[in-house]
């Protein structure tokens, strides 16, 4: 055990935590929007619309995240047309490519979580809203969404932790997040155990915080 290495590399890894958290929060934000959008499409009665949403979630849940990042980062740059549009400003940055890939990936999982949450809402509750003369948008935003959020909190907490681990793949497209810095230190010092302990504890600490936050929210939103 090399204590000096632990002390010197701790601040470096802590600095990299900022990038990890940025990636995590950005992709969770966009992923939640995508997830809600596709969950609503899934519940549509039109077979074509719900089939499209199903296809989206099937493809993104059935392939590894690494492939998705590589397609977006290495693959899309190959299309000549894209290089001429404004999208290229975003797509040439590994940072944004990673966020796009993560958002699409977590969006697929989130849409499944939200869909099952919407499906568990008892039809009686919606019927009660309708018989009170509330309109569709009001029922959706004030009745269905709050119940769905409550239902999906535990599963969504797991998804946040999975996404946190997913952000480590950003290191494969040259981003220096916790894993990226850890790999750099390991490959220069050949001290994998020490670096693993620090980097691992940072990840575990974030996991711990997320876990407790979800627990707190679950308590807060429990039926009275």
């Amino acid at each position, binding site marked *: 055990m090399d204590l000096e290495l632990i002390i010197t590399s701790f601040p470096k890894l802590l600095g990299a935590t900022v990038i990890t958290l940025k990636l995590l929060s950005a992709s969770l934000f966009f992923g939640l929007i995508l997830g809600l959008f596709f969950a609503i499409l899934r519940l549509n009665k039109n077979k074509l619309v719900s089939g499209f949403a199903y296809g989206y979630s099937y493809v993104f849940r059935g392939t590894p995240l690494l492939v998705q990042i590589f397609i977006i980062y290495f693959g899309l740059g190959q299309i000549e047309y894209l290089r001429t549009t404004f999208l290229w400003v975003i797509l040439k940055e590994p940072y944004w490519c990673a966020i796009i890939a993560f958002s699409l990936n977590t969006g697929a999982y989130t849409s499944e979580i939200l869909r099952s949450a919407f499906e568990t809402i008892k039809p009686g509750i919606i019927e009660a809203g309708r018989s009170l003369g509330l309109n569709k948008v009001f029922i959706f935003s004030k009745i269905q969404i709050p119940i769905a959020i409550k239902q999906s909190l535990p599963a969504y907490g797991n998804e946040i932790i999975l996404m946190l681990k997913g952000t*480590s793949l950003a290191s494969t497209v040259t981003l220096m997040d916790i894993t990226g810095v*850890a790999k750099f230190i390991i490959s220069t010092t050949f001290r994998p155990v020490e670096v693993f302990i620090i980097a691992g504890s940072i990840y575990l600490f974030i996991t711990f915080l997320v876990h407790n936050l979800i627990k707190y929210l679950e308590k807060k939103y429990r039926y009275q």
Partner: protein
Amino acid sequence: MELISFGDNGWGDELFVASLMTIAVAITAMLIGFLFALVFTPLKLSKNKFLNLIANSYTTVVRGVPELLVIYLFFFGGSSAIMYVAQIFGYYDYIEINAFITGATSIGIISGAYSTEVFRGAIQSIDKGQFEACHVLGLKKYIYFFKVIMPQMLRLAIPNLSNVWQITLKDTSLISVTGLVEIMRQSYIAAGSTRDPLFFYSFAALLYLMLTYLSMKLINRLEKNYSRGY
């Protein structure tokens, strides 16, 4: 189409072999995971607080740390750890473990943590009366476990194990960072030499989709077989 043809001009045969490699790594990792689960599930269920602590820290740490970090630990630290052990036994030569073993072991340890949780959940949701009935009937430990608890546990565990299999299968793509030529690595090589990354990575995605689709079909059949009578 020429790019994925078999033979010297295309990458079809290489990608086919790489797919077999992915399947081989995934199955090996899953089996290693079962071995770990076999050790840690009893520890999790035991009444001894210390044994509980060991099993809980295994599952918490492995499930809370990115897979890539675990792979780096084994990739960079694996051979020096083995050499350290070998030196205790008086063997001083350089030992190199191959990428397959490193990869399958690291993915196996991750998959084992998930399997442990699945088995623990399955055993805990078996009706208590079943355990008591075994005691009352005075069944031998061996019969008690293999003929009564195991079949019921498998029925409950298989749907969740299929999730673990999917995770494991997708995690194998991460082994490509160690240089083992599986689907991801082969696509990387092909993309590099043909300068057509879009095609090859999309094709890799298609291969993974095919693997997950086929394995789901197989598992559904298994699930039906084990839930006879329910």
